[in-house]
């Protein structure tokens, strides 16, 4: 199982060419160093905005699973699954945070969350909603990402969210592909509106 530090290592591999010290002539360096390290602009800024948006969603998911695990609602196989999903989301948080720093940006701080974790069935429903939304969010952002290494990283997270979503849908007896043969993207404003109830203002 890939834990937090392993996740960062994986991302570091994916982002091997992103460092500001990247000066290979064959590699165009979309690194902030080229434009002055303080204020990333243009493509780098766009990617950083996307990464910080993704980080916000991952903070929510990681915190959600922490609360679910603390509430001790699941045991046996489903308990293992919930624990695995929580570890993955934390690995995503760590990797996105490291990536943002590497690109010269400032990671957003973790929002304070509120989730009702009193009932296993309701929690499973909520988890399915959040994971399906997460997959849709990554899908919408992928074509907007300029840096190829960041795109590779986002894609590698996207399908993990999809796996989580399908698993939770299976536990609920729902279709694993609620939108049919093609995943449906969800844009940023739609996603942020959907997760707003889970953030303490």
């Amino acid at each position, binding site marked *: *199982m*890939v834990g937090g530090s*392993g*996740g960062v290592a*994986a*991302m570091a591999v*994916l982002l091997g*060419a992103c460092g500001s010290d990247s000066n290979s002539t*064959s*590699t*165009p*360096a*979309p690194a902030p160093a*080229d*434009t002055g390290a303080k204020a990333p*602009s*243009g*493509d*780098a800024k766009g990617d950083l905005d996307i990464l910080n948006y993704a980080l916000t969603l991952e903070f929510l998911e990681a915190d959600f699973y922490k609360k679910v695990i603390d509430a001790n609602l699941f045991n046996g196989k489903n308990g*293992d*699954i919930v624990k*695995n*999903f929580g*570890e*993955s989301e934390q*690995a*995503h948080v760590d*990797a996105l945070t490291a990536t943002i720093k590497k690109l010269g940006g400032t990671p957003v701080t973790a929002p304070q969350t509120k989730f009702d974790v009193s009932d296993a069935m309701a929690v499973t429903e909520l988890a399915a909603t959040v994971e399906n939304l997460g*997959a849709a969010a990554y*899908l919408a952002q*992928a*074509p907007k990402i*300029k*840096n*190829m*290494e960041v*795109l*590779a*990283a986002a*894609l*590698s*997270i*996207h*399908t*993990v969210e*999809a*796996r*989580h*979503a*399908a*698993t939770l849908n*299976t536990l609920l007896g729902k279709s*694993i*592909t609620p939108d*049919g*043969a*093609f*995943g*449906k*993207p969800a844009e940023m404003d739609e996603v942020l509106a959907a997760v707003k109830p889970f953030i303490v203002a």
Partner: protein
Amino acid sequence: MPKNKTLAAPELHAIEIHGMTRSSFILKSALTVGATAGAAAVGPFVSNALAQDAEGDIAIVNFALVLEYLETRFYKKATNLGLSKEVADLAKQFADDEQEHINALRGAVKQLGGTVAAKPVFDFGVTDEKSFLKLAQTLEDTGVAAYNGAGPMIKNKDILAAAGSIVQIEGRHAAAIRLQNGEMPSPDAFDKGMTVDEVTKAITPLIKK
């Protein structure tokens, strides 16, 4: 190109993912399609592929198409295996999904002005539900990794969006099959991409010569 303009126009050809450049990825994709689906399927575009964005995307989409041909045939043939109802239902749904992916990818190749790759003949060697589920897991996990490896090499944003909407379904399929096998549905926190060579190595034993 002025140095300070590199941010606005990254040159995909020079960017390496997992040690592969877009050029080598395209070339290897075309070679695999040629080796598996017949040289005629590759067509004359290979020499142009490295020079033109659309031609390169055609090679990548045709590479994905070979994988979808494989998956579709695999699930369609599963009706003869005497599967339990639960697994048979999944196989039927997955066959339909993969067929839709074929249709979409064929449409994309034509839209890009390319020649659609021919369908290879496959030999899966599955005999029962156990061997079916084992290979299904390999195929779906490979499908996820293949698309995730190819994604960053795609130049056309519409094609990238389409590939993303397809790979999400491959990931969902993979999770459902893994649950059937009693395996963790998401074995890693990151679904790392595979190189063309890795994917080709995984599928070559299933292609009938």
